[in-house]
């Protein structure tokens, strides 16, 4: 790895060092175009993992961590990718700009994709205007070389008057050079007239400093990229991908693993053991029941969370992470742009929507990448309404997979149709515009197992931390309602809606109470009802449809408040609940009129 620090160091031996004793730690911010590897470098410097994926917009908001640079502990801040710091900015770009403009950071590390020098230099010219000490990192030099591109790092350092470091961050190459270069950071020397044309300078400098031979490798990449984005080959590939995901998550995860964990691990060992222990050591009947009764923390709460939902969530996170890192998901935007335009969005919306299949709460946060407030509102609404998260998919597949394929198709058909109708109407009714569809397609890559494993494990841990406590709270709530005699009253009060309107057994009212906490928890309750034979196939479809159309979970609702404000959030909640109930009623009526059986 060549490094252009040494020469710089000699040149600057007399310059005052940036590092010295100070009241607060030196703050170093990583800035760069989307998908250039800022989060990888952040992880390498701080030892903290920030989610790394192969598409623009993975990092939302600022993440910070500590790193040792020389003898000094510094704050490192990972920022979302920015294409520009001037003119009309996205929310994320404003956050990054504020940080630099208000001098909240002491040093800027601009991370650049070595293959896209011109774009990086456009950004460099804008960073220069803020006058902060800067280091430029040329990342992914290995990929660039494979594409026949060489960047003259020394020339670039001379042009800008700042240290330039070459790295292959994913393999940890060049990170030592970066640490060495940080103390030498200095403001970018403006090689151009500040009021002049940045684009022309960037073009000229990139042309001078980049040597590119005609593409040598990248043939396979180009071939695959073409195959997945052209309809004739891309749609069959999409179908195959969905089918494989179904096999892995729906069959292996939701059936094989769930059976194993639910019947073997919990049915044969955990629950009998817990019951035996409770019988022996817990003298109070109420406490015993609280732990291992019908609404017991272990027999219900933990069984749902660990045995029914976890296997599916885990398998889903694994395939999902693989797809994320391969760069496949953004290519779906090419197909779906026209479809999303009907709903007042554009193809970019495919990213939050597909992410919603992982977790609606996180996806709600990524709606920030969309261009206009109207698009963000519609996307948040559609996520809350129709996109089932992995945990909920788990229970849907678990229940309906056992009934029939047509039941599954009916459920998804109704939900997708409902999203279309609501999206179409929202596009008409809500004020504002949609933005133009302009999306960068990241290079297709073979996912690295290390990042994939780490990401999956962290997501599973996140699920355990966030969802399991809610399952337990919900179970405790049900237990209390049951013991105080309130549950039968609520069931009775819900009867007109649950039995009359939706045609479901009265007991399913409690399932909807659970559904208010988390949809998947409610669906897990349905799973039990269905297994106990208390739910017919058509009733299961109606109940699951209503549950799917509900707001996903308390966490998601809190995120909607955070992203959209409290009033719109409650409006969304009321609207989504009304749509869910009326759709369920319509479906029940249609099944009855046409005598549908599954």
């Amino acid at each position, binding site marked *: 790895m060549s490094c252009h620090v040494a020469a710089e160091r000699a040149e600057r031996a007399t310059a005052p060092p940036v590092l010295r004793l100070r009241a607060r730690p030196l703050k170093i911010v990583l800035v760069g175009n989307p998908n250039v590897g800022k989060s990888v470098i952040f992880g390498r410097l701080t030892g903290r993992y920030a989610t790394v994926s192969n598409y623009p917009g993975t990092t939302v908001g600022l993440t910070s961590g500590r790193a040792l640079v020389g003898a000094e502990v510094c704050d490192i801040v990972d920022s979302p990718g920015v294409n520009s710091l001037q*003119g009309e900015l996205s929310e994320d770009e404003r956050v990054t700009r504020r940080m630099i403009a208000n001098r909240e950071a002491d040093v800027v590390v601009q991370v650049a994709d070595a293959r896209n020098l011109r774009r990086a230099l*456009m950004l460099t010219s804008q960073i220069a205007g803020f006058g902060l000490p800067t280091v430029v990192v040329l990342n992914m030099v290995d990929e660039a070389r494979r594409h026949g591109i060489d960047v003259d790092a020394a020339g670039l350092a001379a042009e800008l008057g700042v240290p330039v470091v070459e790295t292959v961050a994913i393999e940890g190459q060049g990170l030592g050079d970066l640490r060495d270069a940080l103390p030498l950071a200095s403001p970018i020397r403006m090689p151009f007239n500040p009021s002049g044309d940045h*684009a022309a300078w*960037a073009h000229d400098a990139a042309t001078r400093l980049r040597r590119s031979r005609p593409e040598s490798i990248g043939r396979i990449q180009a071939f695959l990229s073409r195959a997945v*984005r052209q309809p004739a080959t891309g749609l069959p590939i999409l179908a195959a991908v969905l089918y494989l995901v179904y096999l892995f998550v729906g069959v292996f995860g939701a059936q094989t693993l769930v059976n194993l964990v639910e019947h073997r691990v919990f049915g044969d060992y955990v629950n009998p053991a817990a019951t035996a222990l409770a019988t022996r050591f817990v003298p109070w009947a109420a406490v015993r029941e609280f732990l291992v009764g019908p609404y017991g923390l272990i027999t219900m709460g933990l069984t749902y969370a660990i045995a029914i939902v976890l296997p599916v969530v885990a398998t889903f996170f694994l395939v999902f992470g693989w797809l994320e890192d391969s760069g496949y998901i953004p*290519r779906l935007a090419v197909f779906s742009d026209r479809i999303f335009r009907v709903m007042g969005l554009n193809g970019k919306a495919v990213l939050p929507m597909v992410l919603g299949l992982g977790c609606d709460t996180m996806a709600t946060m990524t709606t920030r990448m969309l261009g206009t407030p109207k698009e963000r509102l519609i996307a948040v609404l559609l996520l809350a309404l129709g996109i089932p998260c992995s945990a909920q998919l788990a229970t849907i597949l678990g229940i309906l997979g056992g009934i029939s394929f047509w039941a599954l198709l009916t459920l998804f058909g109704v939900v997708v149709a409902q999203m279309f109708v609501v999206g179409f109407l929202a596009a008409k009714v809500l004020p504002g515009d949609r*933005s*133009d*569809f*302009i999306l960068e397609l990241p290079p297709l890559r073979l996912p690295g197992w290390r990042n994939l494993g780490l990401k999956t494990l962290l997501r599973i841990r996140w699920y355990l931390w966030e969802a399991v406590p809610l399952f337990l709270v919900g179970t405790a709530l049900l237990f209390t309602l049951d013991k105080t005699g309130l549950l039968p009253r609520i069931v009775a009060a819900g009867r007109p809606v649950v039995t009359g309107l939706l045609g479901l057994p009265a007991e399913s009212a409690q399932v909807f109470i659970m559904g208010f906490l988390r949809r998947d928890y409610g669906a897990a309750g349905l799973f039990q009802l269905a297994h106990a034979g208390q739910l017919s196939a058509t009733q299961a479809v109606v109940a699951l449809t209503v549950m799917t159309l509900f707001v996903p979970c308390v966490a998601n609702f809190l995120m909607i408040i955070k992203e959209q404000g409290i009033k719109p959030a409650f409006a969304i909640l009321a609207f989504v609940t009304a749509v869910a109930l009326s759709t369920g009623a319509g479906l029940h009526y249609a099944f009855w009129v046409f005598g549908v059986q599954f």
Partner: protein
Amino acid sequence: MPFGSSVSSFEGGRRLASLAVGERGVVRRVLRDNPARAERLMALGVTPGAHVRLLQRFPGFVFECDQTELAIEPSVARAILVEDES
């Protein structure tokens, strides 16, 4: 940077949308009728002098600009003016 708002003043040039699949060109300018769009394209590297190659027209436009693959809708492809590679 060549500047201007009317298309008719642009002679001998074409729009990105009129390139055939596989055809190459050099960006002459981006129409400024929608400044936000023009700025976003510029930030993605679609600036005068950039070499482009059209990769796909249907169901949406995909083109290559330097080492970046960009997907755009037809109206955006019509706002990018290109000339033949010299």
